[in-house]
């Protein structure tokens, strides 16, 4: 009778070992691009384990959002909801950028709920708050989840990016060094990620007052973006992902040009400002830089 359990158990272990053995070399390889899609798609076995890691990390990421909001579940607002001008987030704090886009609560506010008293019951029985006036719990509570998700999947860029931000915000005295440490780990695991390079450069520039050191990372971030643009990458994304990506790209260019200005690299700042306007118009920092230096703006279709 025991054999009925033992045989499948041994078979499962053997399969597990085979999968790990087959997938491990790719698992340990660093991706050249943002995230791990490239590595995980090399072999079916890698794909299976990679999908599992990514799914688990994504699950934890979702839970982390819930933690920050005390169990209240939010979702991205639909286009029509945004157009109607209702039910969208107004965080009023710096977390707004990290929410990526406008969000609304899954359970609507009473004035927009067609279910009458059923809606009142759900709003009372389930964790709920008006998104327009919502706050965040102690951000430190969500930090362990970010540690777990980046252990689970070291190529989960969002985990490092958002996690470092929470490390920074959760501490009373704004723990930049710990945030940089976390980001450095992320960069070591994902050297092809422009977002992590950009965030590292941002903390050095804005919080540590080290524009020279920041420039090194921001330059790397822009180089990654330029390589990606040359390859024509970053297009196979959903509308929401694209929106978040556009914001990140725009911020990267802005920070880079700002760092060039702060380090008095006039010629380089002008050259990159023109490049930014050319490929990423409207490029606020590029336009501002050219104005500061009293130079005419290049003619582009968007300007």
């Amino acid at each position: 009778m025991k054999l009925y359990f033992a045989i499948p158990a041994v078979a499962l272990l053997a399969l597990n070992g085979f999968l790990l053995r087959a997938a491990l070399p790719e698992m340990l390889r660093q991706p050249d691009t943002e995230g791990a899609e490239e590595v995980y798609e090399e072999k079916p076995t890698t794909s299976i384990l990679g999908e599992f890691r990514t799914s688990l990390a994504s699950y934890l990421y979702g839970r982390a959002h819930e933690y920050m909001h005390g169990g209240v579940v939010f979702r991205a607002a639909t286009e029509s909801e945004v157009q109607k001008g209702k039910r969208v987030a107004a965080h009023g704090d710096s977390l707004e950028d990290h929410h990526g886009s406008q969000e609304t609560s899954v359970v609507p506010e009473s004035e927009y709920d067609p279910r009458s008293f059923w809606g009142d019951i759900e709003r009372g029985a389930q964790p709920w708050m008006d998104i327009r006036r919502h706050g965040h719990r102690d951000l430190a509570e969500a930090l362990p989840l970010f540690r777990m998700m980046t252990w689970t999947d070291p190529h989960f860029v969002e985990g490092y990016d958002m996690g470092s931000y929470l490390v920074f915000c959760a501490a009373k005295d704004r723990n930049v060094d710990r945030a940089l440490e976390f980001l450095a780990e992320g960069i070591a695991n994902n050297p092809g990620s422009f977002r992590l390079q950009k965030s590292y450069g941002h903390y050095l520039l804005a919080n540590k007052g080290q524009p020279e050191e920041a420039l090194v990372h921001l330059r790397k971030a822009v180089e990654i973006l330029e390589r990606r643009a040359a390859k024509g990458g970053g297009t196979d994304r959903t509308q929401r992902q694209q929106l978040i990506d556009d914001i990140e790209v725009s911020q990267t260019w802005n920070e880079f040009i700002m760092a060039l200005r702060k380090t008095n690299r006039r010629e380089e700042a002008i050259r990159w400002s023109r490049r930014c306007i050319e490929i990423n118009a409207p490029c606020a920092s590029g336009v501002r830089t050219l104005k500061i230096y009293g130079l005419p703006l290049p003619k582009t279709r968007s300007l």
Partner: protein
Amino acid sequence: MTPTLRVWRTLIRGSFLEMVRRKELYVLVILTVLMVVGAYSFTFFGVSGLEIFVKDMAFTAVGLFSTILGVTIATRQIPEEISRRTIYPLLARPISRAQLLTGKFVASWVLTLASFALLLGVSLLVLTLLRLPLKVILIQYIWLKAVSFLWLSAICICLSVYVSSSAAFTLGLLLALGSGAFTRSFLLAYGDGVPILNWLIAILYGFLPHFTLFDIARKVVYGWDPIAWWIPLALTVYGIAISAFWLKLALNRFEKMAL
């Protein structure tokens, strides 16, 4: 003791022995402990502050496994009596079909509640050993779970007299675990609604599956204050009414069923 109560007591005892014989509950208790301890094991690797995560795992396990057990218990009550032909000696006694059906419903509810109590007890013990306290809202959680099992037992018994046992199990599980998704989809599709139709929607909405509406586990996990008194009251009235509706529907079919 009235004859109906005697019938119910006998049926509860029989169903309990059947559940013990099948050993399903033991497996789920072990799984619950593994889930909670597994979640806590992350702290050994240096990730401190995972209290909410551990509580979340504990209540997820309790909610999920008690639902699976509830559906399993309720959907096999009537079909197994028929397939084993034990329904004939039962009905040969002075027991009406209504008494048998309601007896099976009560047995399902009591056993699901007992399983839930055991799973919750084990989880609370583990959480206490891990020094993770919970708030008073836990009492409301237990009460509302008990009411939700009324709905679960009633709808599963109703399904089991209309479709086969395995189909009833699948449907019951889908309705119970997917009830939150139905609500979300409805809200997304219907939007703000049409004011003139919304009163009709509010009435019809009550007949949709609302198992997750009774589940305030997330509030327990995140340490919210107790909910307003009228909500458990309203949900209790609703739970009893909708369970009676599904039982009546089941009885209509069961009384006309050719055995």
